[in-house]
């Protein structure tokens, strides 16, 4: 996506990042795929690369990715938005409210609007009144679930299919299936090394692909394009890097921050709507912290759309695996050990000896755990995405750099 094509940031960063070349990225991706395929063949954890897992992972990644994208818009303009979770909840409720009798798209639109309204509140508090960004976000996270439940009880609670904590069912959004996908399934079922895995990968993406997912991909690409390829985006990002410098060049920082935060809320609302549509209704507690996970994906992705999407994909994938099969999670232990061993080798070579040893120790423990047991305990299976994230953040050296003025209160004319 935009990872390899991004232009420079507005303010020169003290340390420039070497952008990974597309060909290197391709080699790494292919290597990862072959390892995945080998582990799948060896362990028989077929769900590691089955089309079902890929499809489920993709739809699980969509709300997380959209929340992260919401974070990207806000934080690139210098406003931390920890209220994403609340705005997502507003989105799920809005989608449920209009979705059950006007169809998923009306619901989606209304959910997005409600999310944007949440963003507007955050913008008023943080930009106009200069309130600490975290406080405002926490307040929104408190108000939103309360408001959603309150509104549920005074609106659709007594309709057919509705309840004190849920909306009546929403119809499914249209999904598309490409014509060749059925023989991909045939290949997939042969369980051939690499070939079947590739078929599963492509099959998962081309079978019953929801239009909502497609929309999310468009929004992601569009956001990357607007933020990094247009003058508007450059100005918006300059507000997040050096607002007073932007101000001195005639940029209306307040305006850009307002736009960014409202769009941020809209993205979170869209993510919430996608969640409600894929669950066919609004339910209390449906978001389950996905707004926070989106924020994690954003940081994981170094405040860039492409790597953010990769982070969301990782979450979605591990989430899908743990839902689908415990054999696959068991196989994931081995996969994790291989990845950690590779990290260990790499860190050793870059001189990070301690990290390398720690990574190796965890890798050995994972192998022992894999060999010693038949399956991972059910309760621990659900923690997979979080453990993987912590390990990646802790062990793979990442030079994360957030926008320079991120989270700082800006007041016009006060830059001394």
């Amino acid at each position, binding site marked *: 996506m935009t990872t390899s094509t991004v232009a420079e940031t507005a303010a020169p960063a003290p340390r420039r990042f070497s952008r990974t070349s597309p060909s290197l990225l391709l080699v790494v991706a292919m290597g990862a795929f072959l390892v995945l395929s080998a582990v799948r063949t060896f362990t028989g954890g077929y769900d590691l690369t089955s089309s079902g897992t890929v499809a489920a992972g993709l739809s699980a990644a969509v709300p997380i990715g959209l929340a992260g994208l919401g974070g990207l818009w806000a934080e690139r303009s210098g406003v931390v938005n920890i209220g994403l979770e609340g705005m997502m909840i507003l989105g799920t409720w809005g989608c449920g409210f209009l979705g059950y009798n006007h169809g998923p798209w009306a619901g989606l639109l209304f959910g997005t609007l409600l999310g944007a309204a949440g963003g507007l509140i955050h913008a008023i*508090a943080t930009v106009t009144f200069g309130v600490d960004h975290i406080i405002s976000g926490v307040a929104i996270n*408190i108000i939103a679930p*309360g*408001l959603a439940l309150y509104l549920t009880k005074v609106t659709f609670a007594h309709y057919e299919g509705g309840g004190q904590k849920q909306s009546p069912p929403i119809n499914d959004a249209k999904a598309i299936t490409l014509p060749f996908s059925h023989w991909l399934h045939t290949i997939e079922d042969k369980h051939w090394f690499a070939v079947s895995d590739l078929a599963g990968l492509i099959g998962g993406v081309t079978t019953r692909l929801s239009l909502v997912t497609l929309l999310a991909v468009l929004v992601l690409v569009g956001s990357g394009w607007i933020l990094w390829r247009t003058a508007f985006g450059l100005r918006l990002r300059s507000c997040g890097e050096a607002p007073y410098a932007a101000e001195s060049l005639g940029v209306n920082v307040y305006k850009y921050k307002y736009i960014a935060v409202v769009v941020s809320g809209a993205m979170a609302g869209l993510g919430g709507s996608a969640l409600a549509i894929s669950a066919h209704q609004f339910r209390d507690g449906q978001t389950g912290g996905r707004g926070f996970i989106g924020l994690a994906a954003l940081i994981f992705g170094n405040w860039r759309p492409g790597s953010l999407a990769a982070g969301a994909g990782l979450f979605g994938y591990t989430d899908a695996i743990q839902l689908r099969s415990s054999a696959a999670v068991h196989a994931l232990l081995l996969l994790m050990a291989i990845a950690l061993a590779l990290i260990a080798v790499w860190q050793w070579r870059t001189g990070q000896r301690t*990290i390398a040893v720690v990574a190796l120790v965890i890798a050995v423990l994972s192998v022992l755990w894999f060999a010693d047991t038949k399956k991972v305990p059910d309760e621990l299976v*659900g*923690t997979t995405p*979080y453990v993987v994230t*912590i390990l990646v953040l802790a062990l793979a050296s990442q030079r*994360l750099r957030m926008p320079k003025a991120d989270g700082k209160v800006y007041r016009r004319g006060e830059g001394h």
Partner: protein
Amino acid sequence: MTSRDDGTGPASQVRIRAGLVNRLRQRYPLRSVLLGFAAPIGAILFAALASSAILSLGGHSPGDVFQTMFKQAGKPTPFVDMVNQAMVYYLSAVAVSIGFRMNLFNIGVEGQYSLAALGAAYVGGQLTGGGPLHIVAEVVVAVLVGAAWAGIAGVLKVYRGVSEVISTIMLNAIAVGLGSYLLHKLGQSSGNNIQTKPISSSGQFPGISYSGTHSKIFGFLIVAVVLGFAYWFIAGRTRFGFRIRVTGLNEEAAVASGVNVKRMTLVAMLLSGGVAGLVGLPELLGQTHTFSQTAQSGLGFAGIAIALLGRNSPIGMALAAVLWSFLGKSANQLDFIGVPREIAAIMQGVILLSVVIAYELVRRYRLVLQQKDVAAQLATGEPTERDAPSAPVVTA
């Protein structure tokens, strides 16, 4: 005052009183005091207005709602309930605010206290006898588990530069899975619920009776009060507390003055987690005596809000905890008059938001007034009476 004056005659007493009043007026000018109260009161009024508007839109009478809530709070049993809840909120807020003092955002109180309560419940259930040492053992285990879980985030932050916001969010999610795994391993089933072995009487914290109800105020109140004092003393009166604050306010200045920022970060995180470990104990040691899946959740997030509302001050957080608990508990009664109790959550959030907005507005207004004072001072060439004469005119 003259040197002959022995300070006992009626005249001199009047003079002393006048002197005291003057000193107080100099130190706390009326305007400044009024402005200080304007923010929280204005915010609560605004929150009342906003929630009234929402209630009216939903077809409910705001008057009835507020009346029901206040009436409920006055009854003995709900009152005790409210005190107990406020205590728990307070512990959580203190844990969060220790991090805040150093610009560390410990979202992980949630996971820290749930694992800590599980650990304390397990150890408490295994032990028998031992008198007060039984309780001490439980508290120590809770503090250690909470600190250890927070310590992971601390180590990651210090040695790997991993944002504690992210790592604690992840650790919260992992704590949920790990907690339920450990509960199945260590617990025993009772009915269709799994719980740890009940704590015997020596490990239970005696409660305080309250007239008119059988419910007792958790004896852990004493610990919370002591903790509040300790927090006030350490944060405001010791070199350690000063270092923590300096590091939070200006890291470069802290480094320049010889503070080991890495170590302080780790220590602050461990302290925050240790206090977070206490959050589950009032309920565990005072009421349930066993840990199960039904233990209260969400206390960590409430703690964040309360620490923010109370601006990290021990007294402020206590007031905020009481307010939070009042809104939450008294709203339970609203279901009986057909009003969704979630209106309380809306009120809580609106209060939090409007309090901080009000503080900000007052701060800006003060600045304007001070500028005017300075201007007047410069024009006439003498100090003005309107503000404290010795107050510094330059503000950050």
